[in-house]
């Protein structure tokens, strides 16, 4: 584990379907090994399919277990949010990162 205070931002880009889930999990695993706080920038995400959502939940759980946190920054676009409404993972967007997080049911997060 690197410096605890270090915040690392991971910028996601494009559509995340199952074909990118393994790479995403590996990338977040690497970042979590070095940084306590991880910021996920959603600004350029077009789509998050269920495998990617699960990876984000799992990574947030791991961050929390290590005393850190996974947070969202940037703006989740209206298109991204609208694709997640039917599955209960979002409401109509665009949403700021914290708003997006607050709409993810039971998302692992540290209480302030």
């Amino acid at each position: 584990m690197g410096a605890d205070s270090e915040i690392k931002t991971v910028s996601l880009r494009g559509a995340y379907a199952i074909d990118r889930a393994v790479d995403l999990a590996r990338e977040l695993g690497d970042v979590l090994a070095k940084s306590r706080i991880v910021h996920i920038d959603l600004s350029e995400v077009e789509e998050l399919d269920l495998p990617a959502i699960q990876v984000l939940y799992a990574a947030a759980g791991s961050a929390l277990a290590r005393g850190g946190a996974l947070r969202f920054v940037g703006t989740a676009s209206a298109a991204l949010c609208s694709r997640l409404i039917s599955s209960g993972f979002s409401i109509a967007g665009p949403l700021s990162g914290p708003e997006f997080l607050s709409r993810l049911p039971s998302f692992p997060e540290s209480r302030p």
Partner: protein
Amino acid sequence: MNEKFKESFREEADELLVQLESILLELEERPADMELINAAFRAIHTVKGSAGMFGFEKAGRFTHDLEGLLDSCRSGRRAVDKNIINLSLRARDKIRDMLAEEDSSGPFDGEALALMDEFRAAANLEASGGLEDAASPKPASPKPAAPQPAAPQPVPAAVPTEYQEPGAAGTALTYRIRFEPQSDLFLNGTRPLRLLDELAALGQLSPIPDVSRIPLLESLDPEACYVAWNCLLTTAASLDDIRDVFIFVEGSAVVKIERIATDADEGEPGKRLGEILVDRGAVRPEALGEALRSQRRLGEVLVESNVVSNSDLESALAEQAHLKRVQDKQAEGPSSSIRVSSDKLDQLVDLVGELVTTQARLLRTSTDILDPGLSSIAEQFDRLVSQLRDNTMSMRMLPIGSTFNKFRRVVRDLSGELGKDVELLAVGADTELDKTVIERLNDPLIHIIRNSLDHGIESPAERRAAGKPERGTIRLTAEHSGANVVISVSDDGKGMDLQAIKAKAVERGLLGPQDQIGDAEAYLLVFKPGFSTAKAVTSVSGRGVGMDVVKREIDSLGGTVSVESTPGLGSTIVLKIPLTLAIIEGLLVRVSEEYFVLPLSVVEACVELRSSEQDSGSRLIRYRDELLPYVDLRDFFAVPGEAPENRQIVVVNVQDSSVGLVVDSVIGDNQTVIKPLGRLYRDAVGLSGATIMGDGRVALIVDCAKLASSAPELEQKARAS
């Protein structure tokens, strides 16, 4: 079998076949999309099942074979390729023909037999190059780290019988749905979020994801499914429709569907959280009683004492909120729809047309009699008839998207025939206009699109050489503009060759060698009968037949056509069409003893024509500081009789230019029920129809576009004389 049911099935099957065509065209673009393969299979599966049930045995047997082909794609035995799409589209057309046949028990014709042979041959073919890189999912392989829910069950048949059908006349019912995928669900190509999208399309959905099984990242298998859902769905769709959403995950997910009683069913106020939790089996009534004795919030108490999990509580709270929303919506009043045959709708419009005419007579008679009681009734009747007319006309309004979808197939088939790669983009498919107008627009639009494909869009090699993408684009857009709809068809092809058009027009005698015309007018030459600049006659166009038909049809719809083109960049043909053809708001005017109606949508103003201006002979008046050309209806239609000293000019705006129409007097607005002119008057210039007035006399409806286009010519003649 009752003919009414058969007809109803035909209509539904037709919708499914339209849907199937659209799905197949999308599948051609994304052949590996399992959701599309499943959707195509479901559509054909439904047609097959219902065809047999309604006595269309031949179509049922034929569809069964097509279903076999699609099933081989769905199960991964066969990849989706061009051949499958072509075959399926041809089969879809054949099914439509079979369903239209009067006798559905006869033998298969040669085409059907050949197609069925092709289905079987294609279904038995193993896909070359493996299925993973084509349309088929990867074979499932269990992941040890992922959770395994209870053994999968088919969508339960054990749902109580009373829940088998939706409520009478499409009443919405509420269902509680537990969707618990197995861990290997992703590996057979299923995307659960898409299933939930389909579920949401059935009605009001409240999905609550259960994420409690997602492990920490270190233990996560990124390709395994861990999430389950508890959903509340309020829908008028049947239980079978809900089950159909999950039809392809029967072996890889637990799906439990149960109907729940809403408060509206029971006539009770909103359900309490405790009742919902007990109802869902999340808490025992005794434990609930104990928790209720505490003065704190029930949910907190139950979670803290580990009686219910957080997830159960979230689900129950969401259910409570959902039921409240449904109750509120039901309190607002039911909203449902019924299917009515278009013939009945046409009859209704005809009857409303007669009613409008009769109402005009009543109003006139009451004015003549001068009876205050009768006048009051006539005025109230007038208001009611106006509302009835507006409501009836709105019933005939349909989105133009249904027509747009047909053109995707035209573009696909034709671009294949011409060796071109062309994409059709449709914008404004929700734009509504009268169903009769939509039907009559079909052929003109097909002609325009075919022309764009044949003459506008270049071959891939030509496009490459011109630095353009190989794939050409035809863009179809529709939007409202006042009482009209503007439809434009634009392509990114080579544009129109203005010099070639003019040269051809001179060669065909449509234009004198010395004639000077503007670009906009020159482009319209392509709509003249017999005009064609194609060097070779193809099966698509080049016979000079088609574009003149477009112009004639648009004229008969009371619309206008204009063309814009840029060499090397493409062309745009713009059609401006009135929203409806049945009843319009008109302005009634009189010339001598004759009455005319001008569509109110084009009327800009009414001004007095001073005798000094009439005498100048220029056929121009000063209007809002500009010179306005005018056409005298008395001269144009050769109406006999002396013109009065004081006359009126009605200023109309057609195709962005204003023209004055001189009349003796303006009577006022008029609800005009349009009647077609008889065959003898079909070619009468300047008239688009007729209407019957309140006193039984006929008024002629003026084709303002035609009169406006002749104004400059009349002005020139007047100057010359």
